[in-house]
């Protein structure tokens, strides 16, 4: 595949700034340059906070905290009533967890 294909195929919309900032500021290899942008500078934290911490709060507000910690894929223990209700709701919506239709 040529680089041209990558660019033109499907015509992706221009990347959202938040997606770019998340990757460029928070991911990638960290090296010690002569001029080091200290990502932990209080000032930059305001940017990072807006991007990451604020969204963490928002997610918690929504009742989502499963991405915290390592065991995000393990379900909360002891909540069988919730599990049961979920199964009912999902089957009512035509979704069978564990046996999703695939192409």
């Amino acid at each position: 595949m040529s680089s041209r294909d990558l660019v033109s195929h499907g015509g992706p919309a221009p990347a959202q700034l938040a997606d770019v900032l998340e990757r460029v500021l928070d991911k990638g290899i960290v090296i010690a340059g002569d001029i080091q942008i200290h990502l932990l500078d209080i000032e930059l934290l305001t940017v990072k906070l807006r991007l990451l911490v604020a969204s963490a709060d928002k997610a918690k507000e929504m009742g989502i905290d499963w991405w915290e910690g390592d065991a995000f894929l393990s379900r909360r223990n002891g909540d069988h009533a919730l599990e049961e209700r979920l199964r009912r709701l999902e089957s009512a919506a035509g979704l069978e967890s564990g046996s999703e239709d695939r192409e």
Partner: protein
Amino acid sequence: MTETGWYVYGVVDGDRVLDDPAGRVHVVSNGRIAAVAASVDLSEFDELPDRLNDEEWLEAKARDHESVLRAAAAGGPVVPLRFGAVYRRQEDVVQLLDERADELVADLDRVRGHVELGVKGFVARKRLEDSLASDRSAAGAATPGRAYLERRRAEREVEDDASAIVADAARSAHARLLERAVTGVLNRPHPRELTGRAEEMFLNAAYLVPAGDRSLHAEVDALTRAYAPLALSFEVTGPWPPYNFVGESSREEVAS
């Protein structure tokens, strides 16, 4: 007199040639690996904390970082560096390559032939809650007070159900998408202030997939179709340079 330095975007194979029509981006090689770098005016990086909070400056620089890496990724593997690595002299860039060669080569080999795809999940929460509420049978209550209490309790249960559905959908979608990827990571969902959308983001994940492989796209389409009755939708972004899959944490993840 302006003092110049070298801004380093990322690392590529040592024999790569980059075609930059503007002649701004250069390859600085130590033979084995090479840095993608551009000559910059050091004064631009003065008073950095102020600059970083200048949204226009930050957006321009972040998008430049991204577009240079994206162009580099089109012709071979690239290991993205985090924003803001500037060296005074070209020799210092070569020294960086020498010092961290083993680690950078390992990262290059791991992402070779692969791209990063982002997957975001959104929920139209009001629509989800409305559909859950309409599923409940409205039993007649004896008194207005009792009817009020029952209505409040029903509202709370609907909210809880909606949250449970959203969390379960995120877990289930991530598990399904991992089956279509070499590996994947979960990042924090962006708040509405960042997305500017009416729906709430509940999933923000990234996956490393073979370049040109569309099976993750197909899985995302299948997820969107399956979850449409619950007012959930999924979207793919990218391909991105593999920002989420380089560095120490990635190696630990793969090793474990």
